[in-house]
């Protein structure tokens, strides 16, 4: 049986970050300017608001081989679009329940709220998330990469 550490020897953990362009996105950029200590294997997609991140996009990312998805928004109460980040928060909480049910693990989805000047905390969140994902098994059975107990089915 392949262990998580074996997997991670050759393969870096991939993280996809959806960052709201008002807060989380600026925080991410500033962390880069300041040369904060960041894991190398994340990519940021700026979005207008965290509430614009469709839960479906999280599935798409995981299916494409991403190990974890982070969604960054403004502080609750500090959203540029009034209460849109509340909706994002509630939706993502339900999404974590579904990911847990299916055995993917809700931890693969990281939701964080901060402001633009909290770049040092962005670095901390990314570091923690990266460490967490390193300890998790690969998603291979789900993405069709083979698994332990059943043969792969025949395609069309």
């Amino acid at each position, binding site marked *: 049986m392949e262990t998580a550490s074996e997997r991670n020897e050759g393969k870096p953990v991939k993280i996809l970050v959806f960052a709201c362009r008002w807060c989380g996105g600026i925080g991410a950029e500033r962390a880069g300017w300041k040369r904060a200590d960041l894991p190398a294997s994340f990519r940021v997609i700026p979005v207008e608001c965290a509430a614009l991140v469709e839960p479906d996009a999280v*599935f798409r990312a995981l299916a494409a081989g991403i190990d974890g998805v982070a969604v960054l928004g403004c502080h609750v109460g500090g959203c540029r679009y009034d209460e849109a980040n509340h909706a994002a*928060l*509630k939706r993502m*909480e339900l999404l974590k*329940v*579904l990911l847990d049910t299916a055995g993917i693990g809700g931890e693969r989805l990281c939701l964080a709220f901060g402001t633009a000047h909290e770049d040092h905390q962005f670095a901390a969140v990314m570091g923690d998330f990266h460490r967490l994902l390193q300890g998790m098994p690969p998603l291979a059975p*789900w993405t069709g990469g083979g698994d332990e107990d059943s043969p*792969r*089915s025949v395609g069309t």
Partner: protein
Amino acid sequence: MKEIKDMSRDLLERREVDGVLGLRQGAYDIVEPHVFRDPGETSLLVTEPKWPMAKTAMKVLRDAPEGFRLAVVARGCDERALTELAKRNQVRDRNLRIIGVACTEARAKECLCDRPYPREIHGGRQEPGADPFEDPRVRALLEGDSRERMNRWASLLRRCIKCYGCRNACPICVCVPCKLEDEIWVEKGSVPAEMLVFHLIRAFHLSDTCVACGACQEACPVFIPLLSLQLAMRRTLKEEYGYEPGMERDRRSPVLKNAFEEPGTRKSVPAWVSPLEENHD
């Protein structure tokens, strides 16, 4: 069921409704949904087997002339589905009446149903529902650590022949166009369906809407226990917000509201939110 037949006949005789949608025992032992318009015809009305009526009712009402008053012989799940459809403006429930059938305890167990009766019961007796999480079938699917669950669900969903039966049978799935037919999300022509995307998008779109009727898994030709994917989300909504899909006509899903209107029982900011705000005054 005699009470249901009598009530249907009375409603039609008194012209309180223009039609009754129910199951008809036809020739050659064929049971099918039918809109009864003639009071005499209601002797052919049967209530078995379980038949998902909500979407049929929706289509009947959509094709009927304006102001057509329809009564539907509905079980608890059918009624909840119709309520959810009405919330989405898919059914004009002003002209809709429910003739409520309560299910037996055995059926509730079979269906993993925790509420096997409609709000108003016209036939049958109210029986206690079954807790789906006590059911051995569900427990076997949801137990174990996440690695076991991942392998279990992956091997179950790998059976999928992508017939779209789960979506088509679902009383709530009515979107046009459907994301599962959009190439951006779901690759066309690949079987089995890309599991993680196809099945989880479908499951999540129903997260706050699923009335747990089980039509998806009954329709599945390869016996994927799809309802068990929804149960944990339903439980979360109930525990967190006291929300059960299909129960309150005028209450929108708490997921669509802000954290002041529907804060949830625990706190306004759930504990799992990573503490970016630490050290922040």
